[in-house]
């Protein structure tokens, strides 16, 4: 019997590996991926990077403009996340098992969140370009929809995880629905929710760069401008600015997380 188990395990591993290799080959053919070029491109890119992609003295003259654009992008990300979080909280309360009114409403609010979550932010940006044009609000709403969808799922999981027992206890004492939500559910899940919001802000700054390339706003536009005009020194300065901004926000988030969780 023991031998059987090991033989079966080995067999499973072989089948898994075989399927993996097959799928890889299919993927390589379909995407027209050049394997050799994939390997040679890395040393080439590193070489190019060290000889061209670094900020020089002249690029620093563009720094005030870059900082302005960066500020806009950071503000858009934070504003979209906060607004998304408010809507997500309402939908999460309707959608979570412990706090929903009934299964139908719960299903509807989960369904809406699923749709918003699974249409990517870039896709939202391309759709909203039709009605908002190349404007900062295009990116704002794209990020807002994405954050709303993602945070709704995260908040639902948080509520169900944190507040099952206390809701039951309060219900047994005869507390009303709003009492339960505002006195127990929200206070006990708020640290976890803030942690998710901070994570979303970091993600959104990166996403905002991508959206900015599509909608011609913010730091993404600045990068695209210098990149397309082959002003690589300034483009690299944009990258450095983004990295510093994201690491700074990550540092603050970690501090807040350690203090509240």
């Amino acid at each position, binding site marked *: 019997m023991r031998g059987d188990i090991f033989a079966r395990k080995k067999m499973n591993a072989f089948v898994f590996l075989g399927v*993996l290799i097959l*799928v*890889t080959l*299919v*993927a*390589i053919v*379909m*995407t*027209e*991926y*050049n394997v050799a*070029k*994939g390997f040679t*491109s*890395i040393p080439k890119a590193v070489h*190019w*990077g060290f000889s061209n992609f670094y900020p020089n003295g002249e690029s620093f003259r563009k720094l005030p403009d870059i900082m302005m654009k960066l500020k*806009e992008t950071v*503000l*858009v990300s*934070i*504003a979209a*996340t*906060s607004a998304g979080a408010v809507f997500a909280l309402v939908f999460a309360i309707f959608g979570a098992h412990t706090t929903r009114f009934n299964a139908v409403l719960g299903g509807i609010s989960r369904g809406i969140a*699923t749709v918003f979550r*699974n*249409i*990517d*932010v*870039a*896709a939202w940006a*391309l*759709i909203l*370009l*039709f*009605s*908002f*044009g190349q*404007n*900062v*609000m295009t990116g704002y709403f794209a990020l807002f929809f994405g954050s709303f969808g993602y945070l709704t799922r995260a908040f639902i999981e948080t509520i169900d995880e944190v507040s099952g027992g206390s809701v039951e206890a309060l219900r047994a004492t005869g507390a009303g629905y709003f009492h339960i939500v505002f006195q127990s559910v929200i206070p006990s899940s*708020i*640290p976890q929710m803030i942690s998710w*919001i901070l994570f979303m802000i970091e993600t959104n700054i*990166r*996403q905002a*760069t*991508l959206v900015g*390339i*599509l909608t011609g706003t913010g730091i993404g536009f600045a*990068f695209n401008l210098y990149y397309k005009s082959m002003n*690589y020194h300034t483009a690299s300065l944009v*990258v450095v600015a*983004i*990295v510093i901004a994201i*690491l700074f926000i*990550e540092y603050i988030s970690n501090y*807040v997380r350690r*203090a*509240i969780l």
Partner: protein
Amino acid sequence: MTAQTGTKIKVKTLNKASVIIRATLLTLTIITIYSFITFDYKGLNLLDSVIKTAKMLPTMLFEPHFKHFTFLEALYKVLVTMGLAFLTTLFGAVIALFMGLFAARNLTNNTTSNVIRGFVAVIRAVPTVLWVLIFAVGAGLGSVAAVVGMSFHSIGYLVKAYSESFEEMDNGVIEALKASGANWWQIVFQAVIPSTITFLLSWTFLRFEINFAVAVAMGAAAGAGGIGFDMFMASMFYSDLREIGVITYFILAFAIMLEVFASRLKRRLKLNA
């Protein structure tokens, strides 16, 4: 007895955690309001645009049509996007597995772990689209630049996830093997990876789900091909709302399929673990 009637029972204590929670919420609110005041709206009429969007969405969703490609062509393009996501996840997972081993504190010394963690944090901070565009200068726009560029962020994400999984495992097993004279590679392949494999797989699949969305975005913003590029063309060049509707349905169907599959896998892995 009478002395007590005047004293209130203090229900809420103001400790450090609750002060920081309030400060965070207040800061976010202030920044949000400040943002809305200082945005450069360029004379955009917000109400008009919202109404326009509300009129536009039904056209997009209820009158989708195929114009520049057929159903099968669109299906093929989605599969190309899936292929890009798959290759990225595979390359990312293989590299991240080794880096993750050296980043886990219970398997290496603190210096190595800190160096890798710092390095990975910087890699993660650069947006994926910039990695792809930077690689495109050398390799040209296309699947090579897309997969290599997207792999960076996958590696950053998976190294963090893998090393945390390794650190959560029972230290007794590692010590027992060390005491019996097993070398580092034996410990890794006989104990560490087998006992964490379910977590590794579920993190990897989660990343595959994310990479699908990233691959769509890279098709649109960095010429990576696949369905994202068609969406970019439909929006920027043809201004064809109905075609965008079709593409949205394709993306939604595949993304939701992946999500359902991922949550099933997660449940099964939890049962097995």
